[in-house]
């Protein structure tokens, strides 16, 4: 599975949006429930799925799913 395929069920679960389509351009304004608490939930769920902890700098660079994919790629999880 590529990273987007692994991320999709996480996003759908955290944001309680079973039909959510995860693309690299997806950002908080596009998703209902993407508030600060759910953002932390999302980060922790992604860490659990991929088995690492984000650094503060990585978290700071994350403004949309595309940024997240770049971080995952840099950590060796392949490209979307």
């Amino acid at each position, binding site marked *: 599975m590529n990273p987007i395929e692994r991320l999709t069920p996480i996003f759908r679960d955290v944001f309680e949006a079973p039909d959510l389509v995860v693309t690299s351009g997806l950002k908080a304004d596009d998703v209902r429930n993407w*508030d*600060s*608490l759910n*953002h932390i*939930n999302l980060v922790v769920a992604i860490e659990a799925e991929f088995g690492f902890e984000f650094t503060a700098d990585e978290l700071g660079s994350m403004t949309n799913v595309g940024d997240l994919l770049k971080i995952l790629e840099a950590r060796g999880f392949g490209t979307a």
Partner: protein
Amino acid sequence: MSPTHPVSAGASLRQFESSLSEQFPYLGRIVERSMETFGPPWAERFDAELRACFGGDSRRVARAARGYAMFSLDAMRLQKKFEKTRRYEPKSYEQASAEVYLNRDYMLDLYLPGILLSHYLWPHHYRQLQFFHDRFVPRLDGLNVPEFFDVGVGTGFYSRNLLAALPGARGRGFDISEHSKAFAERLVAAGGFADRYRVTLADVTARLAGTARVVCSVEVIEHLEDPVRFLKALAGMLDPAGVGFITTALTAPNADHIYLYDDVGEVLEQLEEAGFETVELREEAAYEPRRNEPVPRVAAFIVRRRGGAS
């Protein structure tokens, strides 16, 4: 000299929100959400807190915002593990002291700023503060209080609130951590109360000398291996005519949480065993559970010594 923003009403809050958002996109939304939940009084109180603590110094605001974000993230990481195990990671008080209270970098960069800001940014912590102001402080009216004790001062946040509520009283704080002592004394000084306050380094699990008409201990007992022993000592420090404010965290793992409280009844039993009578309590959750999972909660207790003045 560090860069500063002009300081006026609301400016400190905007500065903090901007700093948090710049460093952690999306986390700054907590400010807007809290404003919606708690309204202008929250904004005014938090703005004043930020102004007193940081005075517009953008470097210090940024450092505190970063500490808060990482503290919150760490807490949620532990919470997710806790949802599966329903246990705190086994740790002795000595281990927690070494890893947290005596660890300068962790205390000053993450733990203390994180806790301080959480009093406004975590809904259950802010509701606990509201309970303190709305229900505990009015009970101090007419109570002659020359001195109060804050046992386990942490950030000094509640010490400072007590100093503001008791303009004629001196405050004595106790804590095991020299970093907490320094942080608390700075926080109290920023509020203009330095001449009425001092913190003594002490093992808070040992019985401390003297009694006071007001005793406060905020989120300490979950950090201990034997809370009842501590509570008995605390009861001994409370004057029979006095009143106490004791809080704890429930189902809320943290790097230094040792004693797991699953429900508030267990705390009530321990308070009673220690010699306290609970006059009023408030329990608050951090957020609504989604699938019946345990969520972090706090419980605050207004207490008297059993057999003391009613």
